[in-house]
């Protein structure tokens, strides 16, 4: 029976992979040459590396979206409070104008 060992299970390569991820984090795309280079560095087949990279990107994107959502939710809640306060003030001012007139 053939088995396939996930690179992730190899603690060492995981660390190395993390380093590589950092390296390529800035440019999300991977140029063919870089891919081959980095893959060699890690002792991986280029395709494996590309796959790993693709997955990492997807995971990162998702995490980012989660964070963005939470941030936006917070901003929204704050804005809502401000808006309601402003509405009250608006009422006050308008009644004031009426009273003056």
């Amino acid at each position, binding site marked *: 029976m053939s088995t396939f060992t996930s690179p992730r299970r190899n603690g060492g390569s995981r660390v190395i992979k993390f380093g590589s991820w950092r390296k390529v984090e800035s440019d999300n795309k991977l140029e063919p040459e870089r891919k081959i280079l980095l893959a060699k560095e890690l002792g991986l087949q280029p395709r494996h590396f590309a796959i790993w990279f693709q997955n990492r990107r997807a995971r990162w994107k998702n995490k980012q979206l989660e964070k963005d959502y939470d941030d936006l939710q917070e901003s929204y809640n704050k804005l809502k409070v401000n808006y309601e306060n402003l509405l009250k003030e608006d009422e006050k001012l308008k009644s004031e104008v*009426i009273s003056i007139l």
Partner: protein
Amino acid sequence: MKRHGSSDSIVGLLPMCQTLEESSSPVGYTRDFQSMLMDGLEEDCVGGGECVQIEKKRRLSANQVKALEKNFEMENKLEPDRKIKLAQELGLQPRQVAVWFQNRRARWKTKQLERDYGVLKSNYDSLKDNYDSLKQDNESLLKQIKELKSKLYGDDEQSNVPMQEQCEDKPKSLENMIETTYFPDFKDGSSDSDSSAIMNEENSGAMADMIKDSRAIMGDAQKAYQPQFVKLEEHNFFGGDESCNFFSDDQAPTLQWYCQDQWNLSEEN
């Protein structure tokens, strides 16, 4: 993850690692989730230098995917018996079905998050717009109040409050306003009788328009106030019969707020 058996009929979709998504359905909604499909035998050289051969990983057939998707739509969690049944029906290993469902749920979650984010973003944007315009209204109200107070209750001297940019006319005191309305022949020269006369003619409808506009503005924030304001205007708090020209663009309005909003409206249009 261990493979089950080694027969050729096994259509593998075991991912390399947990995050590997299989995209046998083209429904895969983002490129990022396309699976890595490796045809043929591949060699995986682990760090130690040993080469291990892995078996073919074939895509699921379109039929299999369709069936799985349909099943997923009905119920996205998998009971053990359902899993086995489904696996048998489709000629897959139960584990494969389980993994497919697992991945499918993850994909669905992401899609849902994207949808939710879009909704939240549009809510936020419209709230922000409302907030900004309300803030503008408030600011002009504040200025109005300040101005009115200083003129009506303040000192005797006629102070010309500097106008806001939108009302580009010369500032007029309240007394001037009254004079302009009722005495077209102007003495101090800040307006000439000609323009007053013209305004008298062309602004018969101005009053109605202003009321309409003010209604629109007020409507956004506080509907309750509408009737009161309309009534005030109709009664013409200056006490005269003539249509009040001071809402026209040419002349400084008594209530800058109206003037400003009229411009705001026209800008929006």
